[in-house]
């Protein structure tokens, strides 16, 4: 269905005297009265102040506008309720006829004495609960924490340790040594992440831990607490700036690692053949096992895609 308004139709002109209507947020009588919700009260916003809270009790922070004047029928209910006589409605000439009804005449009359008393002074005395941030905080990860994890588990450092571990061994032995190395290293990696992650809180994790359901339980532990550990661990050791999370809901968490930095280093330093064995998957798997133990939840952890085969690693965790 294509919808169109008749072209050339003139809508009522609604002018709002902002010198009279100073703090519309506290009053809003016209918004309540208007049958077609023609008015709205919006914040006056500058680009610099967009992340700040504005007190609606202060003059000029909020303004009254009439964005939907196409629906105005000039019923003048707003004029009746306006305590400061700030609204004027002018009905334009429609076709050949200029409408001059009683209601139009009324809209042009001044309300005597309406402006004289300071109507808003009383309203401003009422308390309005402002949201005040409990403390200065950041929603992002702590930079120092990320650097600390990176210092110990940089892909270069891990690969160097690996090449010493597998040096001078035959093929079967290398695989075994690689698996054992990565299993141990992965556990260390996640333990360090958890230790630092719990030490350096940010507002995002606080929000999760503050969320409690009606039975008094924290219910966002899966997937979000686990997701946070995973994100810290990978952001600190990979080259990307955000972890490609493909699923996160109450039952599942899944993410991908495209162009794994560690896999690349192994290819370079230890060799293509060794990298193809994907012994490094034990690194991520054992790390996830440690994180699972930390949140104490039964999960089915799977790896449907590997870098050697598909070109990216994918890990899925399903809540049992």
């Amino acid at each position: 269905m294509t919808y169109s308004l008749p072209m050339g139709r003139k809508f009522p002109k609604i002018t709002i005297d902002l010198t009279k209507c100073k703090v519309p947020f506290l009053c809003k009588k016209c918004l309540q009265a208007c049958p077609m919700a023609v008015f709205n009260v919006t914040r006056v916003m500058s680009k610099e102040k967009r992340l700040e809270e504005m007190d609606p009790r202060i003059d000029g922070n909020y303004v009254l506008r009439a964005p939907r004047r196409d629906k105005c029928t000039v019923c003048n209910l707003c004029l009746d309720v306006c305590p400061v006589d700030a609204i004027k409605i002018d009905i334009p000439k429609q076709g050949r006829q200029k409408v001059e009804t009683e209601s139009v005449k009324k809209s042009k009359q001044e309300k005597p004495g309406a402006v004289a008393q300071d109507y808003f002074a009383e309203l401003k005395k009422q308390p309005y609960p402002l949201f005040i941030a409990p403390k200065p905080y950041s929603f992002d990860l702590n930079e120092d924490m990320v650097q600390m994890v990176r210092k110990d588990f940089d892909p270069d450092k891990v690969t160097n340790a690996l090449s010493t571990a597998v040096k001078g061994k035959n093929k079967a032995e290398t695989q075994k040594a690689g698996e054992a190395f990565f299993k141990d290293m992965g556990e260390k990696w996640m333990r360090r992440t958890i230790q630092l992650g719990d030490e350096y809180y940010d507002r995002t994790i606080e929000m999760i831990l503050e969320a409690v359901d009606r039975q008094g339980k924290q219910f966002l532990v899966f997937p979000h607490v686990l997701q946070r550990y995973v994100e810290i661990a990978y952001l600190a050791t990979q080259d990307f700036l955000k972890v490609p999370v493909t699923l996160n809901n109450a039952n599942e968490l899944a993410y991908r690692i495209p162009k794994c930095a560690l896999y690349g280093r192994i290819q370079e330093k230890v060799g293509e053949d060794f990298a193809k064995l994907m012994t490094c998957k034990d690194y991520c798997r054992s790390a996830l096992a440690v994180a699972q133990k930390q949140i104490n939840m039964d999960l089915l952890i799977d790896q449907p895609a590997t870098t050697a085969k598909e070109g990216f690693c994918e890990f899925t965790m399903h809540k049992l």
Partner: protein
Amino acid sequence: MCNLCEQFGDPKHGNGLWYLNPTNYARNMYKLRAPGEGFQGAEAGLETGARRGPSQMDLLNAIENDDYTEYDRIRKILLAGGQGSQVVPLKDADEVLELCSPIGLIACICRKDLRAIDERNELEYTCMGMGVGMLKWERWPERYKGGVKFVNVDEAKEWNHEMDRRGFVHILMLFGAPYIGGFCQCDYPDCGAIRSAVDFGLGPIKGHYVAMVDYEKCNGCGICAQRCQWGALKFEVTNEKANIDLFKCYGCGLCQTGCPRGAINLLERSSVPAVAEVWR
């Protein structure tokens, strides 16, 4: 198939419906910032992101000036920009809530702007924010006022059913395609989305269903006529039964959930040839 399904649907999930593809709800909780990088896009503030380009007020001016070229130009821009929301019936809404985490109840933005209800009113917490964006909602203190009430999946479903009983339409909101970030509970004329749709033919795209009356079961009680927010369902006086204009129907399913006799069926939009590709 609507535009959104073609782009973001997955045939493996929910018959290819884009909003039943769980990937569209997933997002990272954190990102590292390059040195000197500030907030950009939606992160920079909801209002600053949304108010770019012409508005519907410019559309009204074009109509008054009888300038059809300008009207057409603005309308096309608004049509393209409004591809970010879709009407979803209750039965699909239940499935949607299974796919995202966390879910938080927040104060409705439209009703705060257009009606004198704000976060101090208990009834104001109708709308749901979905996904990890809710964890950072506090960053915009104006919008955060009153806080976010996090609910689990069962509570969210219960709330949705309660909203349906009260008569609100459920509209899914995209926050940067394909990420789905909100679930609004809307009615006319308080809600910006439904107003755009009914007054200008802009706003949310129609749902994947249309409602049809089963004339044998309908007894003409008229309850459904009170629930339609789109002006599509009327009480037909001649035969004393409900009458639905399928071209106006958005497929929200409110008439169906409200009907005490089960006389209204929600059909797949694709099964009705004339409206199969009518999305606005």
